[in-house]
């Protein structure tokens, strides 16, 4: 198939996803709800379910998929490792820790309209990155493998800190944190969509702008620098963009794993390694992928729903293993 045809297929897939998934669910809803977008109250249950639950949920899943997938693309290019994602590198661990700490301290304030819990997640994400980056700079050991292992260690470190906090919490807070850690889009409403959107949009724009730099960084730092890329500067900006997106998503949806590995890798297989194409296609495919995972999560069991983090991990685990044993050597 030619490149353009593949891209059109992806766009059609995305459109199908957006227009079909809201109709999937336990309760079947007629097309007539489209005419009643602003229904309030419970008189019109179909319209409420459609417009206030399913549509925001679709939007949130799509946005989260976009951000997590882009985070994966960026980290895989910068670390030149197909398994690098914000999750494997401790960013999610840091953000999760920030949220757990926030809950434990019982704080509540916001700055410039950004909720305090988002700031806590963002702070945790940035802190984990600075920690890893600082260690790398101080030791001079910047091989992607060292960074990856360092990230894994930081991830574990934060996991233990989260467990320690949970141990100290009362049962209610602890459950709140556990449920949050499972990764869930079920809490979506229009507010949560609006809360995530600026993070994903601004981070996404930065990544889109730096596609050529990503191409060069994915080859080697020396090549990138010799072609004219300000390697350190671009790296910092990309780290920042990814932390922004991941922190924004993680606060609302919790840590949803594996999207950042699966979506970019599928796109790499289909569309090739050029980030001019890989970034926009991973962006779309990440959204599509997470939306379908979430649809599966809320429809597969009749009376309740599974947190989407469980679905992505169930799909992602075997995929991860396949990737590791089939392509691990080459990366």
């Amino acid at each position, binding site marked *: 198939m030619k490149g353009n045809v593949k891209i059109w297929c992806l766009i059609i897939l995305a459109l199908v996803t957006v227009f079909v998934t809201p109709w999937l669910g336990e309760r079947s809803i007629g097309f007539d709800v489209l005419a009643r977008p602003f229904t309030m109250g419970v008189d019109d249950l179909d319209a409420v379910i459609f417009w206030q639950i399913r549509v925001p949920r679709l939007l949130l899943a799509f946005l989260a998929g976009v951000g997590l997938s882009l985070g994966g693309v960026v980290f895989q290019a910068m670390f030149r490792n197909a398994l690098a994602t914000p999750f494997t590198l401790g960013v999610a661990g840091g953000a999760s820790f920030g949220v757990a700490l926030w809950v434990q301290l019982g704080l509540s304030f916001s700055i410039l309209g950004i909720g305090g819990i988002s700031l806590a997640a963002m702070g945790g994400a940035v802190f984990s990155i600075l920690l890893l980056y600082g260690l790398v700079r101080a030791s001079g050991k910047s091989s992607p493998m060292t960074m990856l292992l360092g990230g894994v260690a930081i991830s574990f470190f934060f996991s233990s800190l989260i467990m320690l906090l949970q141990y100290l919490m009362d049962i209610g807070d602890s459950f709140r944190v556990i449920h949050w850690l499972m990764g869930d889009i079920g809490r979506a409403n229009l507010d949560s969509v609006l809360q995530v959107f600026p993070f994903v949009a601004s981070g996404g724009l930065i990544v889109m702008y730096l596609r*050529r730099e990503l191409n060069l960084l994915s*080859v080697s730092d020396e*090549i990138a*620098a010799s072609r*004219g*890329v300000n390697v350190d500067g671009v790296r910092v900006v990309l780290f920042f963009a990814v932390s922004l997106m991941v922190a924004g998503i993680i606060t609302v949806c919790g840590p949803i794993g594996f999207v950042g590995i699966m979506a970019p890798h599928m796109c790499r297989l289909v569309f090739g*390694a050029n980030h001019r194409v890989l970034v926009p296609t991973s962006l779309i495919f990440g959204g599509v992928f997470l939306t379908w995972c979430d649809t599966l999560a809320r429809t597969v069991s009749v009376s309740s729903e599974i947190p989407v983090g469980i679905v992505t991990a169930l799909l992602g685990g075997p995929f991860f293993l396949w990737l590791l044993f089939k392509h691990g050597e080459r990366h």
Partner: protein
Amino acid sequence: MGDYLKAGSGDLEYSILVEGVSLSIGRSRLLDDVSLKVKRGSMTAILGANGAGKTTVLKCLLGLVKPSSGRVEVNGRDVNLYSRVDLARELAYVPQLLNASVSFTVLDFVMMGRYAYEGGFGYQDKEGEGVAMDALQRVDMSKFIDRKLHTLSGGERQKVCLAAALAQESEILILDEPSAHLDPRQSEEVHRLLAGVAESSGLTILTVTHDLNWAAMDYDYVFGMKDGRVVAEGLASEVITCDGLRALFGVDFTIVPHPDTERGMVVPTVRNREGGIS
């Protein structure tokens, strides 16, 4: 090629000027008062054992490493005064054999050499595509534009790297052991291409290499480095001598004239069989 004075204006025209550069990281001194001048349009090689500091000198030129002291000038201007993009327009770099996991198509990769001439977002340098194709033609790889890099042989990958550097349209080409890990035929091809490029375009070429005969055969001027210092410099025929090589590598070689060009070629000194394999 012959006389290294041929291409420059003959006197003070240097593309690269390194003066009294020292570099220490932690307690190890990587470079110790290194000075070297590279004539515009010349082919210059840096020889030396592993760990002698050759690659570190290249990194200083690329602005990847800041010397602790001393001055590095590219085309008459301090390397620190260049923005990365401006430096990329003056000086292109060809690395050692490219990692086989790089899976760009050949054309995409060569187009990445045009970074310094492009804008942000989706802007694609239309003129650049012509330059890239032209560069691929010069290395005889234009038939491979849609192939993925990781499916190419080492020699072909190296030619593509050379094309990407040429697409950068800079005056200076810096190469770090460009024929390491290549089989004899592939390295001969790379050498031939470089000689052709030097001849036709008048680029200044600075190469770090372990290939003594290539340096003896094709290069005008040679620097010898040992333990972070420049210990020898001069015409290839002045540095690549029995004594010169012994000083650089601590090993005896024999120099014999090339049957066609009379240039001195390096062959191993006959080993004492009794002392050899026991």
